[in-house]
């Protein structure tokens, strides 16, 4: 393989993200600090939801079980960002926002990125596994995904 021509997906500018939480979302981010991928599951009807919210949309229950997931999934969709539309984005291009269908979570998806992958190899349906990125100021740990 000609490695000089491979374009590897980079990480988006960390400055775009500033973590804010509330009582319903904080457990997700606390688990990420432990490098655990979790999802909110209704304690009554056992259906998952993402992102975590104060009510189960299926049964309106407010009881939540935080389930630790296996950390794998598949690419549901993706885009390759090639052009800077904010100052300072250039060194981070290209990066790949993606929607990941999480394994073991009843089909719920999370919005993330594909990293450590040759962009030409990315396909819808591609199996992926979580990798963890800490923000430069240590304010948050972010789940991203690489080929499984």
């Amino acid at each position: 393989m000609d490695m000089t021509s491979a374009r590897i997906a980079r990480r988006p500018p960390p400055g775009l993200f500033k973590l804010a939480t509330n009582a319903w979302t904080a457990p997700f981010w606390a688990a990420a600090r432990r490098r655990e991928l979790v999802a909110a599951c209704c304690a009554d009807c056992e259906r998952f939801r993402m992102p975590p919210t104060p009510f189960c949309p299926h049964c309106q229950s407010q009881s939540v079980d935080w389930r630790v997931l296996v950390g794998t999934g598949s690419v549901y969709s993706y885009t390759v960002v090639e052009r800077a539309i904010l100052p300072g984005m250039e060194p981070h291009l290209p990066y790949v926002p993606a929607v990941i269908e999480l394994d073991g979570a009843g089909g719920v998806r999370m919005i993330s990125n594909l990293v450590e992958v040759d962009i030409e190899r990315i396909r819808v349906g591609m199996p992926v596994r979580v990798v963890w990125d800490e923000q430069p100021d240590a304010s948050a740990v972010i789940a991203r995904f690489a080929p499984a």
Partner: protein
Amino acid sequence: MRERTAIVGLGATPYYRRGASAPRTVDELVGQATLAAVADAGLRVGDVDGFAYFAGGFDSALLAETLGIPEIRFSATLTGTGGGSAGAVGLAAAAIVSGQAEVVVCVGANQQGAQRFGAITAAYPATPENAFFSASGLVGPGHMFALLARRHMHLYGTTREDFSAVALAIREHAVNNPNATLRKPLTREDYFSAPMLADPHCLYDFCLENDGAVAVIVTSLERARDLRHRPVRVLAGLHGGSRDWGRSIYWMNMPDASFASSGHAAVARRLYTMAGVSPGDIDTAQIYDHFTSQVIMQLEDYGFCARGEGGAFVRSGAIRLHGGSLPINTDGGQLSCGYVWGMTHVREAVEQLRGTAVNQVAGARLALVTGGPSVLPVSGLILSN
């Protein structure tokens, strides 16, 4: 509500390039479009007694003070963002039919000198909800809708050829329009040699970013009969959407059929029922074209073709003024004419039904206008002459 109200006045500022409307203020642009619409209707500004907005709206108190409107009887804004552009006319009609107001202005405006819409997502405050997308570098709607476009390609075999058919047809309509921002003919070669911005969306899949304002005046059909122009009747105007669409691009958990869509299906069904017409009756459609891929998905949601067949539909030439069965965005749309958060589409539908459009659809009787595919509510409007 059907055929109880009409659009009787139309006003607009020029479509300025992004930032070029300075030093005018955005309230000044809103005021200029409003005064022009009032004059076009043959009314006096003192006749205005209501405002119906979308996407945050404007300050009715300031407008009343500065324009000299003696009494405000209705002032309301649809929730959400650009999804409400067509639906603001329905909100105005609701105010009139319910007897709350008589002469209602619907006005939309952009001024992007300080904040360009292409990067608007990055300007949102850090909230617990936004934390679930902002880390991924989805900076603007163009990035987010690219995810929907990619899924549509995966499910239905839609291609960039299909997207190019939308861009080329709409540019063809802008070429004749002296108000259009981009009037140079666009070729297939231009399209495919353009830079990719957010794969699968290239430069020509994105709408323009203009400054400007467009206003229309809505009043009762009874009163409309005495005014200057032939009334453009509101057959149906409404907003809403399915929970399956919800926050859509900020959620990304829509069921598969809704994910690769424009989120308009529920509104489309109710709109046709209210208007008492079917897709085959529509003579021209002004489809919110922030992205070419979303034009294709709206054509599906509004029943002009089956789900998944939007690509073939646009490639057939159906959407072109010349020889098409459903000419769309006959002014050049937001892709090539001007972007004023969907209000340009209301303007063009009124021009078509008055018979004064630059690219007139012969014998146009019924026009569809759609609001932006965005967070719920989305909206639609069917007008008749």
